[in-house]
């Protein structure tokens, strides 16, 4: 009997994995100004999304039966914004127990009920790159998500088919961790050595398995299976995209050298405040940068920053995106991208690319999202004014053609069930001191706890 129930559970569980379908929507958006990113600005244009995909773009599209129609006259439609660096919807950030933790993955710590997801949608964001923290040199694997808010199943947020990615970290965060624990690395020299060691170990591991597989016999014992090394091998073979926390030009340059030596090509530098100093080298390597619009001076390695970073990188031919790394900033990435016009006069399309197609390329999902093209996913944001205007207010946000945010139905009190007997929930005041802490939180918190426990 027990067995039967167990089997039943297994079957049910299995089928739910196989048949779980995220909702796909149909919608016709009419008379909008469409910022396509790849095909200019189209005035007075309709977009038809069917079964979650963009079916057609044009004027006076025929209205199919039973499809919601949105009159977007006077409004601006852009591709859903993509944040290439986020920690919202994550219940933990750092697995700081070793300087290499390639075996862990953020897919295991997704919280689909984080209200920050809704707030990001209310800023036109449809996809995020949920990243591991920067406490260790080779951190865990990240998870690319679509913001399908309203589900209780973490798997529903998965960006199906998105390539795997992993977090690396250079500079102050991992070296501070090393100092706190009295281990390597405590310098940028040590950081490089650890990365090279990890790759060399992975090559050894791969060779051992290759030798075993080439000459299998009953008398031979297979090498030990090691998920950490498996992951490192996948990086060497180009199956995992590396997104590396970095700030200073020298460390950025160092990692490009290391990757050249190991033949790894797919590399995005995260934060990269000094990427502008090695822009020609980044362009030659083909590496990307995912940066802040204007954050600086919160730690020594970002003291020599410039808000013109995006413009310098763009002009030097480096694929660049602007990210948030913050539950606050993620709500106005359109505004953060717009700052590239103040700092370096990027064109409208160049500025919008920083939060759409460019991050999509960095995450390897540009065949699906990042521009408004027939065949791409119905991930779309509608604004009342041009999204690069400070006065622009997001109106609606769609993921796979399903509307997850609509300012017309947004209510002041977001509580689902209001119990008059209940006490009012906590008030959280975010002070300036917290602001600083937050920006290097990724390293401090975990190691601090770790050190205290070890003592």
């Amino acid at each position, binding site marked *: 009997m027990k067995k039967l129930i167990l089997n039943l559970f297994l079957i049910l569980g299995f089928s739910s994995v196989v048949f779980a379908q995220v909702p796909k929507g149909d919608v016709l958006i009419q008379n909008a100004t469409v910022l396509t990113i790849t095909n200019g600005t189209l005035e007075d244009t309709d977009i038809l999304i069917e079964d979650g995909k963009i079916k057609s773009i044009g004027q006076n599209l025929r209205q199919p039966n039973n499809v919601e129609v949105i009159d977007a006259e006077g409004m601006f439609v852009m591709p859903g914004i993509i944040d290439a660096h986020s920690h919202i919807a994550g219940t933990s950030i750092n697995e700081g127990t070793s300087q290499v933790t390639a075996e862990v993955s953020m897919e295991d710590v997704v919280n689909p009920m984080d209200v920050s997801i809704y707030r990001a949608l209310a800023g036109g964001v449809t996809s995020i790159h949920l990243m591991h923290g920067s406490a260790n040199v080779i951190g865990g694997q990240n998870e690319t998500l679509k913001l399908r808010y309203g589900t209780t199943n973490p798997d529903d947020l998965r960006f199906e088919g998105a390539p795997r990615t992993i977090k690396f970290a250079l500079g102050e965060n991992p070296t501070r961790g090393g100092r706190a624990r009295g281990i390597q690395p405590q310098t940028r020299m040590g950081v490089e050595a650890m990365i090279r060691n990890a790759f060399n170990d992975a090559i050894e591991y791969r060779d051992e398995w290759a030798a075993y597989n080439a000459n299998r016999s009953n008398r031979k014992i297979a090498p030990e299976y090691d998920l950490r090394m498996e992951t490192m091998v996948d990086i060497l073979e180009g199956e995992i995209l590396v997104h590396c926390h970095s700030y200073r030009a020298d460390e950025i340059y160092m990692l490009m050298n290391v990757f050249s030596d190991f033949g790894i090509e797919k590399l995005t530098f995260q934060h990269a405040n000094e990427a502008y100093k090695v822009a020609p080298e980044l362009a030659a390597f083909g590496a990307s940068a995912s940066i802040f619009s204007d954050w600086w*001076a919160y730690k020594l390695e970002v003291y020599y920053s410039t808000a013109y970073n995006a413009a310098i990188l763009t002009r030097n031919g480096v694929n660049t995106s602007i990210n948030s790394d913050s539950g606050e900033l993620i709500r106005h990435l359109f505004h953060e991208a717009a700052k590239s016009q103040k700092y370096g006069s990027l064109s409208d399309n160049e500025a919008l690319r920083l939060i759409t197609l460019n991050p999509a390329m960095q995450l390897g999902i540009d065949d699906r999202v990042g521009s408004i093209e027939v065949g791409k996913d119905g991930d779309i944001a509608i604004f009342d004014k041009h999204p690069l205007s400070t006065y622009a207010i997001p109106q609606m946000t769609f993921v796979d053609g399903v509307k997850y945010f609509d300012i017309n139905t947004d209510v002041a009190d977001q509580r689902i069930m209001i119990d008059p007997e209940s006490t009012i*929930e906590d008030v959280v005041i975010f002070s300036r001191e917290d602001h600083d802490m937050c920006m290097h939180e990724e390293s401090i918190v975990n190691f601090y706890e770790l050190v205290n426990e070890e003592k």
Partner: protein
Amino acid sequence: MRSTKLLLTILVLVLGSTLSFAQNDIMRQARADKFALTNATIYTVTNGVIENGTIVISNGIIEAVGANVTIPTDAIVIDYEGQEIYPGMIDSGTQLGLVEIGSIAEAQDIREFGDITPQMEALTAVNPNSEAIPVTRVSGVTTVITRPSGGVFPGTAATINLFGYTPDQMFAGSKGLVINFPSSGRRWRQTQEEADRARERALKTLNETWDKAELYAEIEGTDGARYYPEMEALARVVKGEMKAYIEVNAAKDILSAIEWVQEKGLTDVVFTGVAEGWRVADELADAGIPVITGPVQSVPTRRSDAFDAAYKNPSVMQKAGVKVALRTNDTENSRNLPYHAGFAAAYGMGREEALKAITINAAEIMGLEDQLGSIEVGKKANLFVATGDPFETSTQILEVFIDGYQIPMTSRQIELYNEFLDRVPGLNKNPVSTDQ
């Protein structure tokens, strides 16, 4: 032969770029002179908009403003046809000059040891050469309140103009005692229990200290009264000689603070932070207490609040009749003040009121309305020239005047841009000669 040609081309390019970049790119020092800024659209803030207007600056003061102004013969005339001129923006809450690098204790002079340090003067620790100061002022922010933090009485905040080589040269003439009103709200990474305990402790400290201060104010100067620097600082507020900036955010704390202020009979009081002001806007208006609120670009204080609660906060208070000024509560990115104002404008406040919130309202709250906050004859020449609406990111700030000084339009961030946009050498330091 070819290389000379190349050299010449490079020379032309380099010269061309310096000329086209900004007309005062070569200006290394600020200059004081008599200036006439002509043909601009002038947003006076207090007297409407003047088309094709002229501003005459002399001895650091606005000498004339209007459409029909006689230009003095000895003035340097700068034609700003098609450009807009605004009063310098005022950020009513920053740590500018006190914090150089956020994560490094040695680079911060913001929080003295102890809960009761009202005698600490922010002005004395302002570093006039902070890298963040030029970065901020070239964006049109000419004046800020810089304030200490931590404890119940962290010290005295000062209003400074963002130009000068000593704190006194920067001082704009207004100070206020900072009081952190005991908060019932949790801070980030704090449990509610910790927050409650901290609040109780702070409340005790606040009231006990205030009782002493009142007593001190009474006996001060009498025979045998010992000099007590903490009490000396507080007594100034008790006697109404100095204003108090009371930091308070949660709705119920705001109500308690109103009660506290009335009970203590304090009249020169400003509430700062006021994150949940929108919940008690009418009470604030009734109490007649002005507020300095922000950052506008903030997450709501409660999970159940609408995504735009913080964006709308200034507007709700202003419409209820509260005098509202804005702050970034930032240091290095105080330059984003116009965008915080822009968000407030978009979410209900409107452009005109939002502009007031970072100019004249701020000046009035500080008691500096006779000197700052608008473009009027007799006021300090703190103003900037922009290509358009300063709330829009596509607008460039062309020129900044502070205390009548024309400020070099550069900062380390701009210098780095000039150096690295087309880095020399580029990818190859020793390119193979193309001559052979």
